[in-house]
């Protein structure tokens, strides 16, 4: 999900939902009060960041896939820690890899963090996986959970995009394109996650045992306790979203604007208040050029002056200095 496709209403709603989930996860972790988890989570985040960029050839397709890591983190660290780790990785990427964005961070944390940790893990993985790590059943549950998580995540992206209305991608064709692609991606993600967990189960079973142990301490019963507030938060978020969106839907008279524009154009008037929809005329082009001029001018004027002697001389030599470049 990217800032360029989100409206403030949709982005803000998902920010609120994700913030509620993160706050719940932080409270859950504080109750655990295990300071060993601090370096473990940090290093796990660095692992996911790096592992996302290691590509593996997918047999029979000629393409390659990589690990996403949401489900892996959830199985290894439990849902609360997994959500915080995923959030930190996505926040870093939003700041630095311009492909997500700060407004889209809420949506991305929801699709890639909340969904695997609080939906796929407790609702698919835990009921199906059984108690013994590394078995075939355990691996199958991992693959299925990854597929479910990615299907839900992809559905989320489609829903968020169409509700935002910035992109003109229509709902059903977009959905029909996204879900099969993410079925394939989910399979790769699931197979890679199952392979990594299987390897760990074979070579260092105590790592998985401690991971499982930390989430089944006597009297802790983490799943119901940490999931309920999150589900309540999600429900509240959904209601809020519904309310805000309803408000917006009634306030955004797309059809009305269009008909106003058409009637205005038919009667030869310019359309006040809808300059973006008016045909590209001389005023608009002139305005765009003037704005760009101001923006770049500001950039050059405000830039710190380095190498004063050079900068002072070069404007004074009007092309007579010969081809320097």
């Amino acid at each position, binding site marked *: 999900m990217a800032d*360029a496709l989100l409206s403030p209403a949709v982005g803000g709603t998902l920010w609120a939902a994700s913030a509620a989930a993160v706050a719940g996860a932080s409270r859950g972790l504080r109750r655990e009060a295990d300071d060993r988890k601090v370096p473990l989570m940090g290093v796990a985040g660095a692992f996911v960041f790096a592992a996302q960029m290691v590509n*593996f050839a997918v047999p029979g397709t000629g393409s390659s896939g990589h690990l996403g890591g949401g489900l892996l983190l959830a199985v290894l660290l439990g849902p609360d820690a997994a959500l915080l780790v995923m959030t930190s990785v996505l926040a*870093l990427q939003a700041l630095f890899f*311009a492909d997500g964005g700060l407004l889209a961070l809420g949506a991305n944390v929801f699709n890639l963090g909340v969904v695997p940790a609080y939906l796929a893990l407790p609702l698919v993985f835990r009921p199906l996986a059984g108690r013994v790590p590394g078995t075939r059943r355990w691996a199958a549950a991992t693959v299925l959970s990854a597929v479910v998580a990615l299907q839900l995540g992809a559905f989320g992206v489609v829903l968020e995009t169409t509700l935002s209305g910035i992109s003109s991608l229509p709902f059903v064709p977009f959905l029909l394109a996204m879900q099969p692609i993410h079925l394939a991606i989910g399979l790769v993600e699931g197979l890679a996650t199952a392979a990594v967990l299987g390897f760990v189960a074979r070579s260092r079973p105590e790592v998985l045992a401690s991971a499982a142990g930390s989430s089944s301490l006597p009297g802790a019963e983490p799943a119901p306790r940490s999931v309920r507030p999150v589900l309540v938060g999600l429900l509240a978020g959904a209601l809020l979203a519904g309310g805000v969106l309803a408000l917006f839907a009634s306030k955004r008279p797309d059809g009305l604007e269009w008909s106003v524009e058409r009637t205005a154009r038919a009667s030869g008037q310019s359309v006040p208040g809808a300059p973006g929809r008016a045909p590209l005329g001389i005023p608009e082009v002139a305005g765009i050029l003037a704005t760009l001029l101001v923006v770049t001018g500001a950039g050059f004027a405000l830039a710190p002056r380095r190498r004063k002697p050079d900068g002072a001389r070069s404007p004074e030599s009007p092309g007579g200095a010969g081809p320097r470049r």
Partner: protein
Amino acid sequence: MRSLAAALDGLLSAEEAARGESPVHELDSRAKVLVTALFVVLVASFPARAVAPLLPFLLFPVVLAARGGVPAAFLGARLLVPLPFVLLLALPALVLEPGETGWRSAASILLRYAATASAALVLLATTGIAGVASALRSLGVPRALVTQLLVLVRYLFVLGEETLRMDRARQQRSFGGRGLGLAGAGPFLGTLLLRSWDRADRVHRAMRARGFDGTLPDSRPKRFGAAEALFVAGWSALLVALRIVDVPALLGHAARSAFAAAGVP
């Protein structure tokens, strides 16, 4: 794997840029985080297919980058990386919507991307991860998440280098692409994971030995003074005004009437 090496390089150069000195660097990080957040929301709030009214918003990242001495080459290089992905999102509009509407739709998405992404990059390059984290903490983000962000960045480079070394070994031992498939993912990533796990153990012992009690101290000085207030108020007012008033349209109409007055048809 080129991408991981490039990502680590880019992060390093962003952190180096953040250690520079400029009026923008000196501002309290909270002021920059707040204005950047407002900026992103305002850009997103434009209706679909808005093109010209979005252009004045480029003023914010451009001015901050210029005042903050952020190299244009750094911004350009970072903006180009996800461009194919953004084009994939923007270009369908050319097919889905007829004629000029499609072009407006695609141009609007590209402009939104350029504006929001460069604002985030400029924030990072003038504030640094530690500065952003410190601002987030005092703006109410849970301590556990802020600590996690800081520890993540601290070990990103160590683990990234480890991954690069392991991948180089994997590539060198592979002939004709053998062993690079999904079957190798388990042992490769599993080994990387176990090494990370052990490293976390050592890190934890070292942290305990130095008196770690579960939280990282934030020693950055905080002062939300007159300069910060002016920065937040000034930019907020300007950005909100630019959101309400369509400056390019005004400029364009002014130009047309000027031409008309001068007798140019």
